[in-house]
């Protein structure tokens, strides 16, 4: 990991801490692994409860180092915990991995959130793959969010199977998929088809799916998905109709264009750029 990112994180921390708090962190950050790990656990006893805001410049600097990485909305404790992890010496791989695994094994909820938030910054990124997929299995909403939303780790390291699971579970849990880093880059046909099955189940049960999830199918449009588009165009929900229009427009599938042409108003707003997926991001 680059020293630049450690420094950038520290700059944000320094902005939000008192002299005593900063001194405590600095001291713990340069102590033995055991003391550092204890500090990771005990951080809420020494740091004030507050939410961190990084100004645009600081945020851009983080992004430059690790695309998609962001600390906005984090608590000071979470940020400080992540920073402490970056201070662990990675030169002895076995020791380093053991220490991080111990923290995972004994972590409470907020510690898990910090650990998963830190994955993009840790050394030996492949080592954490199982842990990361385990977080997707977590029933604790905050833990799930820490890996699924605003975290660039899954995009980079998840297999297609694990990635699709993450996206589907986000939808299943009624969370906004546009907060998933790399959503566009990792769209795939299997995901589009599974999503269609999922929507059919929900429809049969008299339930609905959030309109923006159809952004995942446009590029993989086929005859079966086209039936879903028709279903959406027939929906009483305006967002569903907009989603169908957007998905058809970006499909390049001739029958989809033909279908869209039947809905002239929608076609116009999509083609003029007046309607985009951003309008359905809620």
């Amino acid at each position, binding site marked *: 990991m680059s020293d630049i990112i450690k420094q950038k994180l520290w700059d944000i921390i320094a902005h939000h801490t008192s002299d005593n708090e900063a001194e405590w962190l600095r001291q713990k950050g340069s102590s033995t692994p055991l003391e550092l790990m204890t500090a990771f656990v*005990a951080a809420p006893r020494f740091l004030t409860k507050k939410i961190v805001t990084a100004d645009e410049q600081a945020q851009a600097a983080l992004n430059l180092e690790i695309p998609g990485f962001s600390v906005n909305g984090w608590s000071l404790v979470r940020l400080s915990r992540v920073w402490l992890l970056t201070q662990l010496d990675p030169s002895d791989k076995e020791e380093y991995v053991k220490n991080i695994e111990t923290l995972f094994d004994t972590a409470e*909820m907020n510690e898990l959130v910090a650990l998963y938030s830190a994955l993009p910054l840790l050394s030996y990124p492949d080592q954490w793959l199982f842990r990361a997929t385990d977080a997707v299995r977590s029933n604790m909403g905050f833990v799930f969010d820490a890996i699924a939303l605003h975290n660039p780790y899954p995009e980079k390291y998840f297999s297609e199977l694990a990635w699709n699971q993450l996206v589907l579970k986000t939808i299943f849990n009624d969370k906004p998929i546009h907060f998933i880093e790399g959503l566009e880059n990792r769209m795939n046909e299997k995901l589009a088809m599974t999503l269609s099955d999922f929507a059919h189940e929900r429809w049969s049960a008299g339930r609905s799916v959030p309109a923006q999830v159809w952004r995942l199918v446009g590029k993989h449009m086929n005859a079966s998905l086209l039936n879903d588009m028709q279903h959406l165009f027939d929906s009483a929900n305006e967002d569903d109709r907009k989603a169908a229009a957007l998905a058809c427009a970006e499909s390049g599938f001739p029958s989809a264009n033909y279908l869209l042409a039947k809905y002239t108003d929608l076609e116009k707003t999509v083609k003029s750029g007046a309607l985009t997926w951003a309008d359905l991001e809620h």
Partner: protein
Amino acid sequence: MCLNHNDTANPSHFEQSEEALNAPAHRDIAWNDYKDLIKGMRFFDPHIHMVSRTTDDYQAMNQAGIVALIEPAFWVGQPRTGLSSFKDYYSSLVGWERFRSSQFGIKHYCTMGLNSREANNEPLAEQVMEILPLYIYKEGVVGVGEIGFDDQTPAEEKYYRLQLELAKDAKLPVQVHTPHRDKKKGTERSMAIALEHGIDPSWVIVDHNNEETVKSVLDQGFWAAFTIYPFTKMGNERMVKVVEQYGPERIMINSAADWGISDPLAIPKTAALMKMRGISDEAIRLVTYQNAIDAFGKSGQIDVTDFEAAYAVDQTEKFHGNSILRGGQQPAPVKDFLVIK
């Protein structure tokens, strides 16, 4: 208790007197009969084992005004066979159970410790003591507990003492479990040992008191907790009398609801009963809410704005999509509907 009725004029010690029958030790009250009496009251249950309770309980507790609770580490009904079971249990207290509770708008704290029964398995107890420091410094851990005596064996004493030292180092209050059998002696012994270790009695909550133990506990400056657990511990009618006699200072009530027949609504029901008996609102507030916060708040881990502000918020808004409220479930009880959607 087995009643042995006979016709002698001089009743046996075990017989229930006429007076006792007219003044039962415990009374259950239906929600509709007491909900108005406790309207607007806020409760803090400083001892309840939620891992053994259902979501129905969480819903009912939230509805009855319980805004925060403490889950002490205890034994789970059968002995654990290895360290991993302890680890997973401790992790669940600060992880899954804390989260589950949050889904019902109830702030969840816990105390961490090696319970007295399992202290008797010394090889395992030794290993547990090694990992315990990892847990007691965690966020939301408000004490070392519940620790103390069960059979009052030398092993129990050994680990009780070690954990008192741990609490001292970590600057945490101590939640003391007093034994079911030979309670009076066990309670005295627990207090004497705590004092011997130089622990300030105002940092020690002595739990499961009864009429026989309370005076000494209060006289020595400890907090006296009462468990409303019909049949084996205190009944709520008896509890009201204790508060009438001793006043509200340094007294707190808990449910200790667990896997046995117990009542997660013990606190609101007892509050209602106190109200019926004319105990002042302020005294009720102290023994069902504030005293617990003052005692365990010494840990520095209780921020009342976490639950006083969150009271009566819309859960669906606060706890965005999650696994307890799967696909559109409602957090509030809707038990009157036949149709399940």
